C-alpha cells in the first residue's frame, strides 16, 4: 500500500502562479450560485424536509411508525446511525491519518472530506436521538448530577458509543475549524462587499498570517491529527462493540471492531469520490486541484478497504460455521437463501465483486464507471449495516419469534431523507466556505515547483 500511494509528481499540471489558487477557490464562493447548485440544493432541501417530517412524526407518534417490533427492535434508526457515522470516517482518515503519513495528495480532499465528517456526524446523531423514542430525555445519556444518583451504566457499549461519537464530533470540529482559519482570512481579504467582509472577518478571528502563529497552528494541527487518528479508529470500533458484545448470533464476533472501521473508511471514501467528481465537474476551476490522479489514489485506497471488508465477511461466515452454534448456522444459511437473500447477495455483489473492477487502470479513469462503482458501494455498505443490524435480530435464540423485517412508508423516507439532510448541509458549506485548503494547496504547489 505504501509504495503505491507515495505521491508521484510525474504528470503535474502546469503550476498556477501564486494567488491564482486563492482566486480560483474564492471565485467559487463570490460568484453567483451556479444552476446545478440551486437544483441540487432544492432537491436536497426537499429530502431534508422529508427527513424532518419523519423525525417529527416519530417524536409525536412513537417509534412504532418504523417497522420495528420484537424481535427486530433495531431497524432504520440504528442501521442509518452506523451507516452515516461510517461515511464520516473517511474525512478524518484523509485529513488526519494521511497528514501524519505526509501524503500531500490528501490536500485536494482534506477540507471537504473533513466537512463531510461533521455533516455525516450531525446526520448520524439524529438517529439515536429519535430512536430512543423520548428525545426530550436524551440527557439521560450524560452523567448529570441528580438526587437519585442515577448514572449511565458504564459497562454498556451504548454509553461508550454516545461518548465516543460526541468526542469525535468535538475533535473533528476543532480540527476542521483551525485548519480553516487562514483560508477564511483569505476570503476576508478577497471579499469586496461589506457584509461578506464582516462575516469572514468575524470568522477569521483576526488572523494576520503571522509567522509565529503559522508555526503554532501547524504544530497544533499535527497534534490534533495524532489525537484524531486513534480516535477515528476507536469510534467505529466502539460501534462494532455495540454488536459484538451482544450475545446474538450474527453479532457476537471479535472481528467486528476492525471490520467496522474498514467498512466505514470504505463507504466514506466512496462518498468522498462522488462529491469530488461533482465538485470538479461543477466548478471548472477546481479541475486542476482535484485531479484524476487524486481520484485514482482514493480509488486504490477504496479497493484496499473493500478487500478488508471482504475478508471481514469471510471471517464472519467462517467463524459462524467454526463455532458450530446451533443458531448461528441457520442464520448464515438463511440470510443467503432465505427472505433476506436479495439484500445479502446484493451486498456481496456491490462490496466484494463490483470493486474488483478497480484493479484496472482504464476503469479508474472512467468517470461514469467510477460513479457507478461508488454509488454501488454506498448501496452495498448500507445493505451491510442492515444485514448486520436487522437481519441478525430476525434470527434470535427463540426460533418461534423469528420474523422478517417489514419496511413501512416511514422506513423508506428514513433511508432517503438523511441524504438530503447531509447534502443540504454540504452544499451550504461549499457555497460559503472554501472547499479546498487554499494555503496548503499553495504550499504544495510551490514545493512541487521547486522539486
Amino acid at each position, binding site marked *: 500500500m505504501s509504495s503505491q500511494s507515495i505521491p508521484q509528481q510525474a504528470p503535474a499540471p502546469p503550476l498556477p502562479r*501564486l*494567488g491564482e489558487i*486563492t*482566486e480560483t477557490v474564492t471565485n467559487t464562493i463570490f460568484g453567483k450560485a451556479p444552476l446545478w447548485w440551486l437544483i441540487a440544493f432544492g432537491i436536497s432541501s426537499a429530502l431534508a424536509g422529508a427527513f424532518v417530517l419523519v423525525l417529527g412524526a416519530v417524536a409525536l407518534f412513537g417509534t412504532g411508525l418504523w417497522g420495528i417490533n420484537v424481535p427486530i427492535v433495531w431497524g432504520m434508526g440504528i442501521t442509518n446511525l452506523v451507516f452515516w457515522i461510517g461515511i464520516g470516517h473517511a474525512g478524518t482518515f484523509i485529513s488526519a491519518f494521511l497528514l501524519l503519513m505526509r501524503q500531500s495528495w490528501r490536500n485536494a480532499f482534506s477540507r471537504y472530506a473533513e466537512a463531510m465528517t461533521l455533516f455525516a456526524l450531525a446526520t448520524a446523531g439524529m438517529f439515536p436521538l429519535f430512536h430512543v423514542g423520548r428525545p426530550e430525555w436524551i440527557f439521560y445519556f450524560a*452523567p448529570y448530577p441528580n438526587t437519585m*444518583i*442515577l*448514572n449511565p*451504566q*458504564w*459497562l454498556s457499549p451504548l*454509553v*461508550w458509543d454516545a*461518548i*465516543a461519537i460526541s*468526542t469525535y464530533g*468535538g*475533535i473533528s470540529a*476543532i*480540527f476542521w475549524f*483551525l485548519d480553516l*482559519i*487562514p483560508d477564511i*482570512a*483569505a476570503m*476576508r*481579504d*478577497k471579499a469586496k462587499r461589506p457584509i461578506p467582509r464582516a462575516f469572514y*472577518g468575524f470568522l477569521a*478571528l*483576526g*488572523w*494576520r*498570517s*503571522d*509567522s*509565529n*502563529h*503559522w*508555526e*503554532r*497552528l*501547524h*504544530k*497544533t494541527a499535527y*497534534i*490534533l491529527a495524532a*489525537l*484524531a487518528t*486513534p*480516535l477515528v479508529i*476507536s469510534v467505529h470500533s*466502539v460501534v462494532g*462493540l455495540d454488536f459484538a458484545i451482544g450475545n446474538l448470533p450474527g453479532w457476537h464476533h471479535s472481528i467486528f471492531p476492525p471490520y467496522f472501521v474498514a467498512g466505514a473508511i470504505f463507504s466514506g471514501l466512496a462518498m468522498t469520490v462522488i462529491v469530488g467528481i461533482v465538485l470538479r465537474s461543477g466548478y471548472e476551476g477546481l479541475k486542476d486541484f482535484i485531479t484524476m490522479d487524486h481520484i485514482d489514489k482514493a480509488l486504490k485506497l477504496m479497493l484496499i478497504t473493500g478487500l478488508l471488508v471482504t475478508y471481514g465477511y469471510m471471517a464472519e461466515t467462517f467463524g459462524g460455521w467454526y463455532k458450530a452454534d446451533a443458531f448461528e448456522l441457520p442464520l448464515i444459511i438463511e440470510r443467503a437463501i432465505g427472505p433476506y437473500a436479495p439484500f445479502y447477495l446484493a451486498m456481496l455483489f456491490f462490496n466484494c465483486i463490483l470493486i474488483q473492477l478497480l484493479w484496472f487502470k482504464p476503469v479508474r479513469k472512467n468517470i461514469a464507471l467510477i460513479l457507478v462503482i461508488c454509488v454501488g458501494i454506498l448501496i452495498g455498505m448500507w445493505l451491510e449495516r442492515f444485514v448486520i443490524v436487522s437481519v441478525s435480530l430476525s434470527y434470535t435464540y427463540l426460533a418461534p419469534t423469528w420474523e422478517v423485517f417489514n419496511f413501512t412508508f416511514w422506513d423508506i423516507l428514513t433511508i432517503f431523507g438523511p441524504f438530503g439532510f447531509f447534502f443540504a448541509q454540504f452544499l451550504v458549506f461549499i457555497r460559503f466556505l472554501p472547499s479546498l485548503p*487554499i*494555503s*496548503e494547496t*499553495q*504550499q504544495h504547489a*510551490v514545493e512541487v515547483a521547486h522539486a
Partner: protein
Amino acid sequence: MPETNGCIYGYIAEFEDSESLLEAAHRTREAGFRRARGHSPYYVEGLADALGDNTGDLIAWYVLGGILLGGVAFFLLQFITGAVWYPLNIGARPIVAWQAWMIITFEGSVLGGGLAALLGLVLQIQLPLPYHPIFNAPDFHLASSSRFFLSIEARDPLFDEEGTWQFLESLEPTKVSEVTC
C-alpha cells in the same frame, strides 16, 4: 523615508516569494532585531525559527496535561458513580471493572488533549483579536494570498526611523512601507 505622522507601529517590507522572505528573515535576525515577524499566505517552514520566534511553545505540554486530566477525570467519573455512589452487583461481576472503563477513559483523554490543544493555541497566539495595526499596512490584504511580508515593530530596541528603513531596503524587497497605529 516618508513623513511620519506621529504614531508608527513599525515598518513592513514586501517580498515576491517565500525564499526572499526567508533570506530576509535570517538577515534581520543577524542584524539583531527581536520584534520582527514574517507574514506569509501559507506555512513557510523555518520562518519563525529564522526570526528566532519559535521558542517557548507550550502546546505540547498543554496537550499532555489535557490528556492526563481528561483520562483521570473520566476514569474517576466512572469509578465514583459506578463503584462508590451506586455499585450495582450483577451476577457477582466485579464492581471495579477497570478494563471495561478503559474505553471511556481513552475517549476522555483524547477529548482533554484536543480541548487543551485549542486552549493552548488560543492563549499563545492571542486570537481572536479583531483589530491589529498591521492591517493598516498597504497591500496587506495580499498577505493571505500572494505576497510575503516582513515587519519590524517600532518597539524593537534596535528600531530607529532612518536606520531600520534603510536596513529593510537593503533586503531588496519590492516595497517598504510604514505601518501607522
